[in-house]
């Protein structure tokens, strides 16, 4: 496992030095998941697109000081923080009508998700409150452990575990109502 992580960081370092193949591998491996993370947090396809671009730009320019974790978790953290920042910025700048915002995200989901089941899942995740949604997103899309989520959100570990449980339970119920579960 450690070996995998080491070679992943080596490949990341090659991308940082301008190696095109390493760059392609990095992007192919992480883009879609980061896009989902950004989409769920911002609720906007445009914002998510920007967050993903910016995540890669920041990551490639970053001076890496710690390679004990995974590249996936590293990118996930950057994307999550950028997405939260972006959401706060949009909220500040635009007087958002809540209903309009929800409609907007549904449109956004239709536009960016080709798969019908993905759209149902995305709708179920979007229906969660922010606290539950962020735990789910960090765990499944950000590559974080429960301990790391507790630390980055500043909530007790027990709360994180309870939130992931209810978040997934609620998503499953939504999916079942729409006949989209196995």
């Amino acid at each position, binding site marked *: 496992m450690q070996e995998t992580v080491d070679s992943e960081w080596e490949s990341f370092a090659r991308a940082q030095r301008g190696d*095109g193949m390493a760059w392609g591998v990095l992007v192919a491996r992480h883009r879609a998941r980061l896009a989902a993370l950004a989409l769920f947090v911002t609720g906007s396809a445009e914002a998510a697109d920007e967050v993903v671009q910016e995540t890669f730009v920041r990551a490639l320019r970053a001076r890496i000081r710690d390679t004990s974790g995974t590249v996936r978790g590293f990118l996930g953290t950057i994307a999550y923080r950028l997405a939260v920042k972006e959401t706060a910025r949009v909220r500040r700048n635009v007087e958002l009508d809540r209903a309009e915002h929800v409609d907007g995200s549904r449109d956004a989901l239709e536009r960016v998700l080709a798969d019908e089941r993905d759209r149902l899942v995305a709708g179920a995740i979007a229906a969660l409150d922010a606290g539950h949604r962020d735990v789910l997103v960090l765990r499944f899309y950000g590559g974080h452990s429960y301990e790391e989520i507790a630390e980055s959100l500043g909530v007790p570990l027990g709360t994180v575990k309870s939130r992931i449980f209810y978040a997934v339970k609620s998503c499953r119920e939504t999916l079942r109502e729409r006949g989209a579960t196995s």
Partner: protein
Amino acid sequence: MTHRTEDELLAYALEVVESEEERAAIATHLETCPECRGRLESIRADIEAIAGVRPSRLAAGILDRRPRVQVVRAGLGGVRGFPLRAWLRAAALIVIGLVVGFGVGSRVEREPVFISPAYMEASPPAVAASGAAVSDATAVTPGYYESILE
């Protein structure tokens, strides 16, 4: 034989069972009960679906946009600022990416979903914890990400 409830199996699949005794008891039951194993499998399939949304049409242009990056040697000066021209170029590529993305989106294969191997192996938390020497995210000092996101 009393079967395990849906909530118990979900907590087991998510590795959030309250106590080690309880977790071990569920694991023991699963060994002898094909019915509960089947329900656990279906829960795991749902988790895979919930964890597996991949917006193939989003940010597709990034692949064609390899930044010319200079490795930052010392300090974090020069990290800031992304010139307007680069943004315009990026925007153009996003548009191209979206167009191309729409074309290939439906044919993009689903990437396997990451689920911690411990989910599958039902290893006791102690083992999982020692295996987590490789943490999912990067354990870093406070301020590390702030400097990147500045």
